[in-house]
């Protein structure tokens, strides 16, 4: 591969170059390149199995890419000698399934990594934790255990847990997909306020209304490629690519079943 000009360190929040990822013979990511600027809010949309989550998980190396490079700020995450524990501290991550620590209280969930990883004093960690619980409107539940909270509350605590590490950017992997519909709004509201505060955010989501309103940029993925990207209003409001159009058509009009599409899909599956 010809050496490409390497951007000045730190000029991008995230810089992904020629990223490929296979699980066995299944190639999930086929040559992805993407740059995300500091302060930018990027939503990644696309059908399930398109590689959105895998792409996100390659940024903090929860999945190890097959080839390609990922830079977070000046650090090359994909470098074999990268100090992942140090780099990951600066990258918050929010999961679909919340992944709060069930054996710890809400407050302990927020302080454990501050104390053990950042070596903060306990009082300082608690102060930071309380500040962030306040930000997500969960101050009243600091002594509760995760099992006693609703899904929306758990996800807000999970966001506060990430924020307590004072990350430079946040990754959201379908943060509202596991929630009951009436609980989605409270989580999206917290994410929106974070975006307004200038946090760099990469969000894999199916919430098109949220993407249109909050994202600076929308990236549409299908079949392991980035098919289309651009301003949120343009990609969602006026998609150029046919695959983007048909995906958005299906997502925005779930009750309209296109008979021709069904027949086409059946023919494909029997072929």
């Amino acid at each position, binding site marked *: 591969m010809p050496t490409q000009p390497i951007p000045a360190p730190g000029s991008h929040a995230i810089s992904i170059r020629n990223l490929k990822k296979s699980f066995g013979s299944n190639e999930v990511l086929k040559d992805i390149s993407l740059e995300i600027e500091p302060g930018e809010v990027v939503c990644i949309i696309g059908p399930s199995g398109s590689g959105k989550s895998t792409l996100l998980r390659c940024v903090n190396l929860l999945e190890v890419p097959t080839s390609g490079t990922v830079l977070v700020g000046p650090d090359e995450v994909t470098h074999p000698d990268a100090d992942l524990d140090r780099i990951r501290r600066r990258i918050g991550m929010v*999961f679909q399934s919340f992944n709060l620590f069930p*054996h710890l209280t809400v407050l302990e969930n927020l302080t454990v990594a501050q104390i053990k990883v950042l070596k903060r004093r306990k009082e300082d960690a608690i102060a930071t934790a309380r500040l962030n619980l306040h930000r997500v409107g969960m101050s009243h539940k600091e002594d509760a255990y995760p099992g006693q909270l609703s899904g929306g509350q758990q996800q807000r605590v999970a966001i506060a847990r990430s924020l307590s590490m004072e990350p430079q950017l946040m990754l959201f992997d379908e943060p509202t997909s596991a929630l009951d519909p009436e609980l989605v709004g409270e989580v999206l509201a917290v994410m929106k306020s974070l975006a307004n505060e200038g946090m760099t955010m990469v969000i894999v989501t199916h919430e098109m209304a949220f993407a249109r309103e909050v994202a600076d940029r929308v990236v549409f993925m299908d079949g392991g490629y980035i098919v289309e990207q651009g301003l949120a209003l343009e990609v969602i409001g006026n998609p150029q690519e046919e695959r983007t159009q048909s995906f958005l058509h299906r997502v925005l009009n779930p009750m309209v079943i296109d008979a021709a599409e069904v027949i086409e899909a059946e023919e494909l599956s029997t072929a």
Partner: protein
Amino acid sequence: MSTQTTHPATEAAAPRLTRRQRARLSLGVQYALGIAVIGLLAFMTDWATFSAAFLRFDILERMLPRVILIGLVNTIIYAALAFIFAFVVGLLLAVMRLSSVAAYRWFAGAYVEFFRGVPALVVLFMVAYGIPNAFPGFQFPGDKYGMVMVGLGITAAAYMAETFRAGIQAVPKGQLEAARTLGMSHTRTMATIVIPQAFRVVIPPLTNEMILLVKDSSLVYVLGVTAAQYELTKFAQDFLNRSVNATPLIVAALCYLAITLPLSGLVRRLEARYAKAR
């Protein structure tokens, strides 16, 4: 085709019983059979001889209080010591079995397979007679107590390792990922996030392991212990030889139950609580 047509015919020929009537008939037959067997046994037994063989209060009186102070107490001590040994070694083996170092995985796997497949009595003999011969001058700390701790603990550790491994693997992968994304190292993740959660899962099976150890402590009687080191079985056997009567065995059995029944009650309660917590 023909078999299908005959089927309704035979059913029609048989006396028509509703499903409930059939169930009641089956239940009645089972009760009648059970009562007949018990009645027959009761009729054939000479009750005076029977109770004299199993329940003589004069023997019970002679056994008290030492059966409690020596037998029961030593049984608990042997089981507890072996449990502590097995707990530490088992946890170590479980972590080795999940290690990324192949040699550790191999060793832990071989250990588990070997000691699960060999009778506890054989292992106890190997420890009790093999180790002092192999290391001349070596003395188990606490003499027989140290010997039993290792001899029974080695086998129990193999079972506990598997319990711990299952417990660690029962912790969802997302927990590990969440901890790693917060910048925790693998070791720290294991220590602060995974193992504490695994413990909640393994407490019921560990209590079962404790019950098994209480019973396995009866093997100690083969080691030639002094009177002060007697556990329940050896204690009962001693009385059995002197009295030629089974009463000591009944007393020992009741003492074992006095330990194991509360433990199984504890397991049931813990399991119920764990089921609710999920």
